[in-house]
């Protein structure tokens, strides 16, 4: 697993990994083909977008911030990428990620310069990015170019694995190294733990926050590029609710919304857990025993979030009850 070293989260990150294992085991025992290469690949391919968004969200949340704009940002970036895909893979990729970075830059500026609460700042940029997505697309989905290799980013395989999943994997490895092995990563955690103290300790608070929001925006943009490439079109109204799905994944992964504590690896496990649950629902319907409409998906996700949150609340209380250790 990635990056458990140096993570002393309140919850540890093992709970979510164990839960993920159990859910996979359940699926493997109950359904034929559950672990078939096709199914595994499509789960990975589809969830890689969410994984990228959740990674950025994870870092933002560790600073005790939040980024509500990621979903709208991804939608807008997918439109931009679709427009640019006619010039080729690299221009499409660069334009999409660039669009995401701009939104991230805006978030960073509003949060660090205007000193507006991240929740409100990103709520506003969410509206703005959503509006831009519609304006840039004329309220329609924008087909990508199939003449260039742009769609490879979403549909292609490399070494027998889906390209988007590989992109996400690389992003998570980099994210984990940054968090655990660089001072920037530790500064992110320090800001979330106590921003004022971090400033007093002489660490670059504003710059780190700025970079965190920009990176989160860039990752959302990258997710938008994959969205466009995977479904063959820029989707101005896709991405609604992604931010909340990302927050849910991060929380399920044991990162506290109060900041200061977090794990990149557990966030990935959180994304996969929520994704696999959805797959299980599909398989269950396939078995014909019960017929749950797709609408159950969100009910189950919500319920799952509830269970995790209650569990965390109990652990947090236990932790708080522990007496402090004196060294003398």
């Amino acid at each position, binding site marked *: 697993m990635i990056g458990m070293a140096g993570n002393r989260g309140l919850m540890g990150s093992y709970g979510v990994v164990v839960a993920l294992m159990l859910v996979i085991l359940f699926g493997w025992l109950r359904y034929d083909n559950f672990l078939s290469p096709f199914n595994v690949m499509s789960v990975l391919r589809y969830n890689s977008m969410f994984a990228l968004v959740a990674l950025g969200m994870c870092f933002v949340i560790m600073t005790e911030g939040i980024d509500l704009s990621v979903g709208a940002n991804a939608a807008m970036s997918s439109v931009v990428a679709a427009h640019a895909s006619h010039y080729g893979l690299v221009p499409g990729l660069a334009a999409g990620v660039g669009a995401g970075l701009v939104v991230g830059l805006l978030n960073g500026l509003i949060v660090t310069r205007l000193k507006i609460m991240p929740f409100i700042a990103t709520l506003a940029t969410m509206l703005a990015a959503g509006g831009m997505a519609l304006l840039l697309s004329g309220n329609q989905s924008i087909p990508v170019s199939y003449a260039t290799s742009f769609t490879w980013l979403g549909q292609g395989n490399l070494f027998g694995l889906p390209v988007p999943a590989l992109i996400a994997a690389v992003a998570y490895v980099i994210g984990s190294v940054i968090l655990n092995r*660089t001072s920037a990563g530790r500064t992110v955690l*320090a800001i979330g733990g*106590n921003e004022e103290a971090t400033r007093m*300790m*002489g660490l670059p608070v504003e710059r780190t926050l700025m970079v965190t929001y920009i990176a989160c925006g860039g990752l959302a943009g990258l997710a938008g590029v994959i969205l466009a490439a995977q479904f063959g079109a820029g989707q101005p109204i896709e991405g609604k609710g992604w931010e909340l799905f990302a927050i849910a994944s991060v929380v399920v992964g044991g990162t506290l919304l109060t900041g200061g504590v977090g794990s990149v690896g557990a966030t990935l496990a959180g994304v996969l857990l929520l994704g696999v649950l959805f797959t299980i629902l599909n398989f269950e319907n396939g078995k014909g025993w019960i017929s749950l409409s797709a609408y159950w998906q969100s009910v189950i996700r919500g319920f799952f979030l509830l269970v995790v949150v209650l569990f965390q609340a109990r652990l947090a209380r236990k932790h708080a009850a522990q007496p402090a250790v004196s060294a003398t």
Partner: protein
Amino acid sequence: MTQPPLLRIDNLHKRFGGTVALDGAEIEVAPGEVHALVGQNGAGKSTLIKILTGFIPGDDGEITFEGAPFSVGSPQAAQAAGISTIYQEINLVPTLSVTENICLGREIRRRGLLDWRGMRAEAERLLAKFNMSIDVSRPLSDFSTATQQMIAIARAIGFSARLVIMDEPTSSLDEREAAVLFDVIRGLRDEGVSVIFVSHKLDELYEVCDRVTIMRDGRTIRACAMAEIGKLDLVSTMLGREISRSGGRTTAFAGDHDHDVGDTILSAEGLKDGAHVRDVHFSVRKGEIVGFAGLLGAGRTETAKLVFGAARPEGGEIRFDGAGFAPQTPADAINAGIGFCTEDRKVEGIVPDMSIAENMMLALMPKLARAGILDEKRQARIVEKFIASLGIKCAGPGQKIRELSGGNQQKVLLGRWLAMSPRLLILDEPTRGIDVGAKAEIQKLVNTLADDGLAVLMISSELEEVSEGADRVFVLREGLTVAELTNGEINEERILAAMAHGGGEPSVAEA
């Protein structure tokens, strides 16, 4: 002066809008000197420190550090120049490990990545200077306040600080922990590091400081060696007036322990709650001031919270007014006629954005309401009455409480409980962080309340306050009631002995 000073501040001025914070302040600190900086609240100490640490610029004046003109624009720059500050509230990150708290900002890297092993060794090396051996990979929040303070100092040393400023470092330490801190300070002095030590506790100053600078109204009034100035002299210089002392008293309490006491109103037997309260018994009678003495962590505040319903005991019995009493919430205790002034005004007392009137009426307001609708006329009358009788200095009842001084905030909170006409008032450190004038007023007030028949349970870490103010003293030690002192037995020596050794009941106290 045999050697040039490490730090020299001359004629420093600072205004905030219309108010003058510093009006020609001066200080001179020699290398390897522990220098006390004292003054009442508002004397300009904090402003001086803030300028020195780069938080705010000075308007005018000269600062020389290590022989060169000194000017920094940020705490980081001050840190880099060799001035580190340890604040009252520890300014480290609780969720990060000890290692990170010590090393962040000057990380050890290998091939561009953090070298955790090297950083841990560095943290251990610095802590070993204070004879501390702890698991540095655990989060800071796992450790006691005293340990965290040492860690903060270790960080400062790690940044090769030449001057360490400590702003009331002992305010949340018990005496044992403070003693360890003083050893560390002496260790720093021996290594040639200078310390500016800000504290309101006189004994500490005499214990650890070499010289003192006394400030008043933004000016330096006097600077001399600690040995040259007596306590009384120090205090009266600080206040700028001769304080009247009747029979050697330092508080405004009568000190005669002669309140007309009535029946027992509150009693507790065998109280238990976790590690802090293990076996506590005490009682309070009408018209009596009962003092709770003990070191920090002795379980005094925790016991008070059990009585007030802010926590539930695991065992033991509380009787209030002759009947069993088991409040589930503070509201239950308030309804029974108990008021509780907490030790931490900011965190547990005031609602900063609310007005004086709203703060004062917070507990009483449901009782004055009809069908949940506020009776504002009656509220206003009561508020006016208490503002006058408590002598609260304010622009009016509508002023936001956060704009008041600590002493006036405390009076508003006292008013909150007095307005309830309580039968028992619990005061937790009623004069902490309050300037000397307001302190005396509050002490006088508490005395009058007891004269009028109110039962008062007073927790205080100031020995004089307990020994002169209380009619009866219970000494708590590590969660146990170890002594009960009445009238003639109450004096500082006996209280201290009980706090340190468990008093006259060795069978109860542990070795």
